[in-house]
């Protein structure tokens, strides 16, 4: 029998004839027809539709009532506003209900869907439940779940809105998942370190329409900070003895010290686990306790070492707020140790507080750590783009302290500056020398690998990161390897590696942003936005997640929103370079070339080695109609950055637009494309081929690229070029088919032209409206309007000759290709 039952109302209503109403402790009565009976349940939140045998309705009602009352009274027990003298009675009644009706697991399940609604006075509740073991056990169990409930809630809140029709739709799914027990199963599984795959599968099967939303939700739980390591010992394995054995042999030989060491080591492992879970309050509290206990039998030096070590762990886990806090405390505990100041300065530099970092470096120098101090100062100079000064400082200090342990960091700093200056071959050579001298240094292998990435030598970079990991598994090598795969278009492998990295370093913004970037280049914009949001939530002190989000918004065409976000990032992170570059790109797309030019000039003034800014400036000049000036500007950049692929591509694009295709061809080596830059050059080669061998050969090349390019934005450019090419040779229907095969991979203006030329007036008008609504640049508006005029979509005479549209499209394609 189908029955509506509510324990809150203490009533049930049969939905099958003869309709009856059941009240607790009363005989059933006939229910009215129509909907009147349902008013009985107004205000009740526990209404359920269930199937029960007709003679079991009373039992089901009784149980529903008991659940409601037990939950309700349990909440009274938690409420600090309730009179203390009542609590004992509450606990007694709950004990009776959960014993009589065997409700403990139900209560845990229900209480696992929301955090405690009030601030709970734990001791008061435990005291009141002291004589009621089931209640006490229940309370303690639910208390332990609170952190996990928050995580599950937050993860769901972070699921992209794009999967839902509305906020209500999302809220309804959440309600269903809670009612079905999925939510609580996740919270409980996380608490117990169990796998959530089966629950995920059940939920996804039950809510097929929301399968992707559930996948995103659980991905955040699995790969993020909310998941405990697969093996509970993982945390211990993560920390090598080198990292934890902070005491000297002398310390350990002291009576009773070994026991203290063991205790400290175990506590540190626990704290690192809390950092991974981003349980910052708990990590902070545990550290305080550890330090307090160390005060009993340890020296200030040892306490400072503990704090420094934990600060370094916080850094590895991308939690700069604790890195900063603990490293500062270390300097207060032991002002005589230059390393504590070095770590503090490192933390300050990480969060962009450069002036304070200078002061901390002075402290390091006063304590005898000139090597630390000078390296820190060189790093600051490098961040401010004073590359020559930075390199000189690194080299001076490296030479001065060449026989000291740790000097390799000064040498690697000097090599890194070469990379920043675009002198990649020199940087590679220097790093190779350093890895020969210190072959066991994973940091130096990583440094070399990152330069190789910059030089586009991705396969070598992967191998080099492997050498780094062989010395000691580390997050930088893991993420670097993933990035090399991502850049070379091996997106599935990259995603897997990022997920693995996040498993152990759930707050690492390089890994989180890299993962988001994979979604972005695959064209999964909403997933990318959600992933960047997750990164921003876990790493709120760095610019990368916000810059990534702005880039994803740009991809989506939300240019105003992207511009606003970039501007806010620039204000908040004045030393970040990706944000101003992104802003200039957005301004170009918006057609605000004057502002773009002003911004690029200002950026170049501050960062004269920034090739990307100079390249963009040349593109702006070209877009403004100053092609010759743009070419000169690019030649200047090429002189400084001869190996920069982006500059060469921009120059080739410019030359093609100037009709100098043969010169362009010399800048476009014919090689199998891998990276986004390679694919950009491939497009330009197709356009050169079009000029030389005609459209047929170019079309074949473009079709191959569309089928094989793993990068969404590049595929869109290929598709645009192919549409334009087919339209120019009068194959309108073929052009439309290219659009229709992947509408989201074609730009709006090309789709407009294909639809309009092939007499799909309705689709063309829709596209025209869409273009106007998106507030694109004047160039795009002019092109779209002329297409509309020429194809009689609007009642205006064309303003340009017939070939103008094709040329304008080609200009747009070339500009984007660069």
């Amino acid at each position, binding site marked *: 029998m189908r029955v*509506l039952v*509510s*324990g*809150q*109302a*203490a*009533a049930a209503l049969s*939905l099958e004839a003869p309709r009856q*109403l059941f*009240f*607790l*402790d*009363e005989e059933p*009565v*006939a*229910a*009215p027809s*129509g*909907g*009147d*009976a*349902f*008013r*009985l349940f*107004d*205000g*009740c*939140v*526990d*209404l*359920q*539709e269930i199937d029960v045998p007709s003679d079991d309705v009373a039992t089901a009602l009784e149980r529903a*009532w*008991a659940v*409601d*009352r*037990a939950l*309700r*009274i349990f*909440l*009274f027990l938690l*409420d600090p506003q*309730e009179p203390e003298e*009542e609590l004992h*009675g*509450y606990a007694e*009644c709950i004990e*009776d*209900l959960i014993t009589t009706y065997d409700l403990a697991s139900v209560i845990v399940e229900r209480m696992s869907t929301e955090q405690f*609604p009030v601030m709970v006075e734990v001791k008061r509740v435990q005291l009141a439940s002291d004589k009621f073991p089931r209640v006490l056990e229940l309370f303690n169990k639910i208390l332990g779940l609170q952190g996990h409930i928050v995580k599950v809630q937050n993860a769901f809140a972070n699921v992209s809105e794009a999967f839902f029709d509305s906020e*209500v739709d999302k*809220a*309804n799914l*959440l*309600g*269903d998942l809670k*009612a079905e027990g999925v939510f609580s199963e996740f919270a409980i599984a996380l608490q117990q370190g169990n796998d959530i795959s089966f629950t995920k599968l059940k939920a996804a099967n039950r809510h097929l329409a929301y399968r992707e939303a559930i996948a995103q939700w659980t991905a955040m739980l699995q790969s993020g900070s909310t998941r405990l390591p697969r093996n509970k010992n993982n945390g211990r394995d993560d920390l090598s003895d080198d990292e934890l054995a902070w005491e000297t042999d002398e310390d350990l030989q002291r009576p009773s010290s070994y026991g203290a060491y063991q205790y400290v080591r175990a506590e540190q492992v626990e704290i690192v686990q809390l950092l991974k879970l981003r349980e910052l309050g708990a990590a902070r509290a545990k550290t305080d306790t550890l330090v307090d206990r160390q005060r009993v039998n340890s020296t200030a030096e040892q306490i400072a070492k503990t704090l420094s070590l934990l600060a370094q762990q916080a850094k590895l886990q991308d939690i700069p707020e604790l890195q900063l806090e603990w490293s500062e405390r270390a300097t207060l505990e032991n002002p005589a140790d230059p390393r504590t100041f070095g770590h503090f300065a490192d933390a300050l530099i990480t969060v962009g507080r450069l002036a304070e970092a200078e002061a901390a470096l002075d402290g390091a120098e006063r304590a005898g750590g000139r090597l630390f101090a000078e390296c820190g100062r060189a790093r600051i100079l490098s961040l401010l783009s004073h590359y020559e000064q930075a390199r000189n400082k690194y080299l001076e200090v490296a030479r001065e302290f060449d026989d000291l342990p740790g000097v390799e960091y000064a040498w690697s700093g000097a090599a890194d500056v070469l990379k920043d200056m675009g002198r990649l071959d020199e940087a590679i050579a220097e790093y190779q020398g350093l890895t020969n001298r210190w072959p066991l240094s994973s940091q130096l292998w990583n440094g070399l690998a990152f330069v190789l990435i910059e030089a586009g030598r991705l396969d070598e970079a992967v191998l080099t990161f492997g050498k780094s990991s062989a010395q000691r598994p580390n997050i930088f090598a893991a993420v670097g390897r993933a990035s090399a795969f991502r850049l070379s278009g091996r997106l599935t492998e990259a995603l897997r590696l990022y997920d693995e990295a996040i498993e152990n370093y759930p707050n690492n913004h390089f890994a989180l942003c890299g993962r988001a970037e994979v979604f972005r280049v695959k064209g999964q914009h909403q997933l990318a936005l959600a992933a960047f949001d997750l990164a921003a939530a876990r790493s709120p002190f760095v610019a990368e997640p916000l810059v990534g989000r702005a880039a994803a918004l740009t991809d989506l065409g939300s240019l105003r929103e992207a511009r606003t976000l970039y501007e806010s990032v620039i204000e908040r992170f004045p030393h970040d370079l990706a944000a101003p570059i992104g802003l200039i790109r957005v301004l170009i797309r918006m057609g605000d070339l004057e502002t773009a030019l002003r911004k690029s000039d200002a950026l170049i003034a501050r960062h004269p080695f920034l090739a990307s800014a100079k390249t963009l400036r040349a593109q702006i000049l070209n877009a403004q109609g100053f092609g010759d000036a743009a070419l000169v500007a690019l030649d200047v950049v090429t002189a400084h950055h001869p190996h920069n692929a982006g500059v060469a591509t921009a120059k080739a694009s410019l030359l093609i637009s100037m009709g100098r295709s043969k010169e362009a061809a010399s800048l476009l080596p014919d090689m199998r494309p891998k990276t986004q830059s390679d694919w950009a050059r491939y497009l330009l080669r197709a356009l050169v081929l079009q000029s030389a061998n005609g459209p047929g050969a170019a079309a074949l090349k473009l079709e191959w690229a569309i089928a094989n390019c793993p990068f969404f934005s590049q595929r869109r450019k290929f598709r645009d070029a192919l549409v334009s090419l087919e339209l120019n040779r009068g194959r309108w229907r073929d052009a439309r088919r290219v659009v229709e095969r992947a509408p989201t991979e074609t730009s709006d203006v090309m789709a407009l032209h294909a639809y309009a030329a092939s007499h799909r007036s309705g689709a063309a008008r829709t596209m025209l409206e869409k273009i106007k609504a998106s507030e694109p640049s004047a160039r795009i508006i002019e092109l779209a309007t002329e297409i509309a005029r020429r194809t009689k979509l609007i009642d205006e005479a064309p303003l340009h000759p017939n070939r103008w549209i094709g040329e304008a499209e080609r200009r747009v394609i070339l500009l984007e290709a660069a």
Partner: protein
Amino acid sequence: MASDPCTKCGSDVPLSSAECPVCSRQQSFPNVRMAERASEVAALAARIQQAEVSAAGLGLTEILGQFVAATGRSQAVMNRSLGALSGWLSSSNPLFLSFFRQREQGRPPDGSEWDEQRLAAEAAINPYCYTELNYAALTLDGSGMPYYGPYSVVLKEITIEDRASIFEENPFIFNKNHHVIAGSTPPLGYRTSWARRGELCGAKLHGKLTAQMKAPDFAPILMERKGSESDCDFVEVHIYGPVNRVGIASVRGVAPKRAGDRIIWKQAVGALKKLGATVEEVS
């Protein structure tokens, strides 16, 4: 869509809106405006006139006058189960939401056929604002309809008088009796404003008055209870918007027998007293 003129600029204001789309002047609540439409007022006036004629013919003019005056001072009562009352009093949200608003916020189960049955009846009577309405009944003695729950919650007049309209009876019964089906318009003259509730009561119930009746006899005329049976007769109050628990004037209910319920009731009594509401426990 039906509309009436703005009280300030005279522009048409749809009955679904509480604000003039032209000058933004706040209008009266949609259900009240619907009840105060000239056509409704005229139709109710005709019913009252009929009642007065009948009462005069039966020599009950004075009694009818007393009944209209008494019911003109009646109160709105909502009946609730103990669990629903406790939820209202102890929730972080002090508002009692309408059924449809609650459904929007995820009240399970949602969108079922039985919800639609309810929607059909209520939307037929208040097509422009049924999603916003909470329901109560008129009472003269502080007791409500136990069929909807054993606890009678009387609301403070000041919190509802501007936004409440009065309707003849339970809409499920009204629709049946007046053959109101989907798409048809309910007959006129069966609704009024809070201020004129006595007139509607007189028009509806004059036939039940007798010459011997005194004031205390009016309560069971206004609300005819038949235990927990569903065909009890009452005059319905439609309250636009959520009802805040601060608006509770009094609660009357039985002392529960089960231990779990006794705790809930005791806690509810404490909460009600904190709100300044009176509580009457009946056996």
